[in-house]
């Protein structure tokens, strides 16, 4: 593969949105759009004849590498098993339960200032939070706490290993020279 083609391939690979020919032209400081178009055509043919895992798709006025549709089933499996992240809302709710347990939903909601039914349900389903019991109040509201899975997720021996707010405060502010 000649250098220009390889460089264009690397740009296609790293690009977040479909790459326009003009953009490639600017990045590589080329005069000629045709050279780029030829390289793209040649890449597309190569992917096709080589029957690779991905192909070159002309889309939304640009070019983008995409996995072959016939492999969609495998990719979906990959995405299903991908370690998910917790949303910010779930993270906040979880942290309140972790630090303030045993705690009532109404207290979680007081602290977060929003309804937490949905995030608590998510956390219950993921077995990070459990119902420890019911409080002797009108309506017998449920009391929430964390689970063994919670400890495992964060690799904690027990709740005493949770870092405290003081630990975090002791670290001070992030170093100003590091642009985050």
């Amino acid at each position: 593969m000649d250098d220009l083609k390889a460089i264009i391939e690397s740009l296609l690979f790293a690009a977040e949105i479909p790459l326009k020919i003009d953009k490639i032209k600017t990045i590589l400081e080329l005069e000629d759009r045709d050279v780029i178009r030829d390289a793209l055509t040649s890449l597309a043919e190569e992917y096709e004849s080589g029957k690779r895992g991905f192909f070159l798709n002309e889309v939304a006025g640009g070019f983008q590498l995409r996995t072959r549709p016939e492999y969609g089933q495998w990719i979906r499996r990959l995405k299903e098993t991908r370690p998910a992240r917790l949303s910010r809302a779930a993270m906040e709710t979880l942290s309140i339960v972790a630090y303030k347990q045993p705690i009532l939903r109404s207290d979680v909601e007081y602290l977060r200032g929003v309804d937490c039914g949905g995030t608590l349900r998510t956390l219950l389903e993921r077995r990070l939070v459990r119902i420890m019991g019911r409080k002797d109040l009108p309506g017998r509201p449920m009391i929430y706490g964390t689970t063994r899975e919670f400890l495992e997720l964060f690799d904690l021996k027990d709740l005493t290993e949770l870092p405290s707010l003081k630990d975090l405060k002791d670290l001070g502010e992030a170093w100003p020279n590091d642009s985050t």
Partner: protein
Amino acid sequence: MEQTQDQTPYQVNLGELFDGPMDLLVHLVKKNEVDIYDIPIALITQQYVEYLEWMKSVNIDVAGEFLVMAATLAHIKSRMLLPTPEEEGEDEDPRMEIIRPLAEYLQLKYAADDLLDRDRLDWDVFRRADLDAAEAWSDEEPGLIQVGLFELIDAFQDIIKRVSPKYLWDLTPDKISVKSRMSQISELIEEKGSVAFTELFETEATRGDIIVTFLAVLEMAKLQLIRVMQHVESGIIRIFNG
């Protein structure tokens, strides 16, 4: 990653020129082209102090740790001047007090350079753009969760910042221990249905642990998370789910 070189004159402190006293020492050893294992301690001490003096004269804030190092250097220098009593002739070179940490610091500084020389992600090499990043944050996603302890406490701190300080009760170690014990007891009861009061103490080692367990049981009873029952005949106290 590249270093930040711009230092605005009115904001300078020594910590921005040198990342601490060790860094300044490395600079002096390097400038004088001396062997780190045979540091001319008098010369380096003199230059080190001169450096601090100069800093002060141009109104640069000299942090405490730089002064501590100056004292250490002066101390080593004075020990070098003392005649060694013959019976202690095999005493270690006083300079080792500074040479050892300096050598280790240097090694790790080299290591940092070695790391930066590697093909760095998002600088030398790039992975494919994460096109589904937004989707990855959804609540609906099943499966495992990838998250760190720092994120957890960071989230909690954000909440604490938002709510009134009167809600900020102190999480002292004891309080946390009790909470932790409560959680364990609760798991235990969930598993077994009920547990004998004495069972809770059998594995306890220290007096502190016993107190923590006792407080946990009291607190749980107060919150009606558990029911404490005593057998009429045997006198055995058992704890049940509330």
